[in-house]
């Protein structure tokens, strides 16, 4: 029994190598983020994202500390998923990032009853291809003098 539980934990938390052979069958398909981090830490985030978010939301909301490490807005901005019509999908869509694991693990998400589940300001990165980046940067350079 103990083995079964720890195996289940491993699968849910994605302790990669041990279960990687069966990933395609047993693991939810997790959509790719828009950006990559310098030091990816998916295991930590999978296990602890709710605690990090709760800690930092209290700091921001109650104390006005906006220089926190974790914010739901940043999660949403980076883990945005496009639907067939290329616009970003909302939490109502089964392709939504959070749903991949939450549906799999049958854990209800309350966040988006109040928070917007779609990225806002970052919409631009999708509208421009990598080729446009140089032009944009030249413009930014110009106006930032």
């Amino acid at each position, binding site marked *: 029994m103990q083995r079964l539980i720890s195996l289940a934990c491993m699968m849910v938390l994605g302790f990669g190598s041990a279960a990687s052979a069966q990933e395609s069958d047993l693991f939810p398909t997790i959509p790719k983020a828009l950006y990559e981090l310098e030091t990816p830490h998916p295991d930590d985030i999978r296990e602890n994202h709710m605690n990090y978010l709760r800690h930092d939301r209290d700091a921001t909301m109650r104390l006005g500390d*906006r220089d926190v490490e974790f*914010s739901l807005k940043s999660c949403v901005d980076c883990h945005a998923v496009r639907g067939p019509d290329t616009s970003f999908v909302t939490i109502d869509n089964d392709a939504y990032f959070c749903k991949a694991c939450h549906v799999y693990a049958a854990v209800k998400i309350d966040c988006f009853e109040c928070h917007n589940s779609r990225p806002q300001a970052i919409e631009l990165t999708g509208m421009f291809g990598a080729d446009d980046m140089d032009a944009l940067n030249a413009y930014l350079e110009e106006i930032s003098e």
Partner: protein
Amino acid sequence: MKLPLLKSKNDATDIGRRQFLKSGAAMVTVTLAPGVTVMAYGGAAAAQANPATRWGLLIDVNKCAKDCTACVSACSNENGWQDTGNPATDAQWIRKVELRNPQTGLEQSLAVMCQHCENPPCVDVCPTGASFKRPDGIVLVDKHICIGCRYCMMACPYKARSFIHEPVTDQKPHAPRGKGTVEGCTLCVHRVDEGQQPACVDACNTTGNGAMIFGDLNDPESEIAIQLATYASSAIRSDLGLNPGVRYQNL
């Protein structure tokens, strides 16, 4: 000011983890063309709410024009609440109130919102601790723990809070709001934390009426404190001893 450059998806790896995950304060937004906004990360971070500060508003009723609702529209746009055609239950973060003195016939019009009381009864009665006052005097609802009991709505003498009856979608990212919780004027806390003033004050200035002043009541150098020290002002229902942060002139 030097703006950080954009990174394309593939060479974004040098955005540090901490820097990237940081929330709004350190973002720079640039409007390139209508509807196109570039957002970049970087720059110095904002400090926490300062307990030495007490944010407040001063509203000059003589300058508040009778048919003007610029502040109400600005608040609605900024924070994403709308009329849904159910006046009995629609959210009202700010409203225009018309007064008429039957003896003299004097008619006045003024904007009323959460008065950000120093001794807020909405905080006293809240059974969960969701209704709270920030160190800088801004009174807010923590919707994560609000159970929607509406005690605070009963306790507030200014009818400043609204209950959300319907599911809400497409909220403003800086103003989360959802069914089953209570809400009210936040004094545009997301703007204040970035060094801006509330949307209503900006809108009032844009109309040219200039009836609202926002500032730190505790800073004797601030315009609001100078005005309060120079001219007579009043608080609505000052008899209640709540010491509101919102003050009125010529009321």
